[in-house]
């Protein structure tokens, strides 16, 4: 203990000698964070690191580590980066703390929109929204005289023209890597047809008309995609875009910035964003809304929590957003929506609006069941009806094992 204190004192005195110009104060409590690794998180954690004594871990596999790491006592990380999908296990296990008093103390710059409230208590601070929306090559669409598609029928009509013109390898790119990505495509499409995921008794309702229609629409895209689409994830689709191999895709808003990255992209300035296409007349855009934000661990001392939250607010300030305006669709003050944000904003403000991704235990189970059972449909081994029955059975088995169903 004595040694630890001595070492700490040494570190602190070292810190004292160096100046942290970009940060408003000096952080003297050692803090750690675990979050996803995409551009926006890099910007935020870099801004936090300017205050000193802070170690950020950016890891795309964070979702498998976070629940166990936060359950440890003391927690292995003070700050966690989550999305509405991955906050569920932390909320369920009670390993993150309510932030209301800290918001009152340090959160003057937060807008009410950023506070993620569960039962009236602020459990997380959102920093950005994310959604899958339509990204398309404006130059190709203009050359061929195609209007921006607003529905999936128009997407297919446009794809047909692009395919006939033969200007790109594949008209559509899709994040259909079997597993999580493919399941997410269904989770986007299914509510677009008005489908509900669950019944009141926690059984799943995907085995329905809307389910069949969603699957059929997904199967239709296969005619215009890369034949190897079942191995293509977001990064792969992003690269296909950057290399000019595809003309449109329903892709994550967080990938939009990469289209104009001159080091990687051959299509700088040619990719435009539009709202996610609707699946049926009068329906919501066929996508789900996501947020990313920070949480503070429960199993740490109040002093550490205080310091962690203060540091997080420093990372989420106006200065950071101004320096990284294009990295995300920020919810933080000072953000000026550029052309890259147009599609996400149109999607989020559409009426009826796309639903947020449900953060529930059941959704985690259903997402896995979809990811495992849908590939057989897309490879043609099984028809839509049989696939939905298989999804239902897989969900029921795992829901019983998880204690969600009797």
């Amino acid at each position: 203990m004595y040694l630890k204190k001595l070492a700490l004192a040494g570190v602190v005195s070292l810190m004292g000698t160096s100046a942290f110009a970009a940060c408003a104060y000096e952080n003297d409590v050692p803090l750690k964070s675990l979050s996803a690794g995409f551009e926006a998180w890099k910007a935020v954690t870099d801004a936090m690191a300017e205050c000193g004594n802070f170690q950020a871990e950016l890891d795309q596999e964070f979702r498998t580590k976070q629940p166990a790491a936060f359950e440890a006592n003391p927690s292995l990380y003070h700050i966690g980066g989550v999305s509405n999908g991955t906050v569920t296990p932390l909320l369920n296990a009670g390993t993150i703390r309510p932030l209301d008093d800290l918001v009152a103390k340090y959160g003057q710059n937060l807008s009410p929109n950023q506070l993620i409230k569960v039962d009236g208590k602020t459990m997380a601070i959102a920093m950005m929204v994310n959604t899958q929306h339509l990204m398309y090559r404006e130059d190709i669409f203009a050359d061929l005289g195609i209007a921006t598609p607003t529905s999936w029928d128009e997407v297919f009509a446009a794809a047909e023209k692009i395919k006939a013109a033969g200007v790109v390898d594949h008209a559509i790119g899709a994040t259909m890597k079997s597993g999580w990505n493919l399941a997410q495509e269904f989770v986007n499409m299914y509510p677009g047809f008005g489908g509900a995921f669950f019944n009141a008794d926690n059984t799943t309702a995907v085995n329905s008309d809307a389910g069949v229609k969603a699957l059929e629409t997904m199967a239709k895209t296969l005619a215009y995609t890369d034949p190897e689409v079942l191995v293509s994830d977001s990064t792969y689709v992003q690269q296909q875009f950057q290399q000019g191999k595809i003309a449109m895709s329903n892709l994550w808003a967080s990938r939009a910035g990469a289209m104009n990255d001159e080091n990687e992209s051959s299509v700088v300035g040619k990719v435009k964003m539009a709202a996610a296409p609707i699946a049926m007349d009068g329906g919501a855009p066929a996508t789900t809304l996501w947020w990313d934000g920070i949480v503070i661990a429960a199993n740490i001392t109040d002093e550490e929590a205080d310091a962690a939250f203060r540091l997080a607010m420093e990372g989420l300030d106006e200065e950071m957003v101004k320096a990284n305006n294009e990295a995300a669709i920020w919810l933080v003050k000072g953000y000026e929506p550029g052309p890259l944000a147009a599609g996400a904003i149109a999607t989020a403000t559409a009426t009826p609006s796309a639903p947020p991704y449900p953060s529930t235990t059941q959704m985690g189970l259903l997402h896995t069941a979809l990811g495992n059972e849908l590939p057989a449909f897309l490879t043609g081994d099984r028809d839509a009806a049989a696939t939905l029955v298989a999804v239902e059975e897989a969900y029921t088995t795992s829901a019983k094992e998880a204690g969600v169903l009797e």
Partner: protein
Amino acid sequence: MKFKTFFWFVGPSVFMMLLFIAAPLVSVFIQSFQVTQPIMQQIEVETCTPGFLTQTCTTEVKTVPVIDEVTGKTQTTTEWVGLQSYRNVLQMDKVWAALGSGNWGDILQIDFWKALRFTLSFTLFTLPLVIGVGLLIALAVNNAARSLRGPVIFISLLPFIITPVIGSLSIYWLFVGDGILTATLERWTGQDIAMFAQSWTIEMLMYFYRVWHVAPFAFVIFYAGLQTVNMDTLESAIIDGANRFERLRYVIVPHLMPLIIFIALIHLMDCYRVFEEIVGFRSQAHVISLQWLTFDFLTPDDAGNRAISRASASAMLTMIGIVVLLVLPLRRTWRDHKGGAH
């Protein structure tokens, strides 16, 4: 050897085996008959999530685990469920239904049987290839000029040194989309080639990769064995008029037989646990293996659920499979061993 000396030599190894192999195995065996689940309650929760400008708040009934007030951890219950987890993995009711209706193909829609089909064909197809290719390289090196042997051995050992995940990823990158090799092949043939669009091409690549990776191991063993072939027997075979093939068939192969069985044993054990190829080639949509199935059960989803019981059952089934596969070659070794003792 004195028992005491023997004990001190073997003791540490036995201890490690008990600690790291036997104990986990027993715990997995027990877990495969249990289900541990959190106690769930239904509560009405109001959740507010951000849109772009305003928040949307929804009130809904959510199923959430009960948290113990004293420990602050989720309350769980553990129940003995008998063979339920095995039934969930094997899904025998569907298998019988498929057999009864004559739609045998339906069996391969069930994850376990789909994985078993691939794992078995992977193991059994690559086995003769590995032994054959390994023997060929060994014979070639043995007959090469002495000055060439060193470099040839070095080069042929290289594939074995590569970490399996890295090796399979390299093959994936060479062949996926517009990978170097696919692009070259497309230029030659003028056809659009998609190696990862259908299962048979993926399987061919996997077989190729595994043989390429493991053949050097067989080669090293065979090459060592070739150094001990009795030259007198070989020379008398030549005098008796045996040609090259007959010498191989009647002198060399019988001499190498124990080594062939040894390699077969190791290869069966290794191949039945095929995993890296599935992950490296991202082939989950088309082919999966038993080991990958266990891994998939163990991977937590976004909500933190893991199917530990089914993973345990699937792991036990994998072990049973390996034992069944190994019985035949082991019986032969046992017979030879007993025969040799007399």
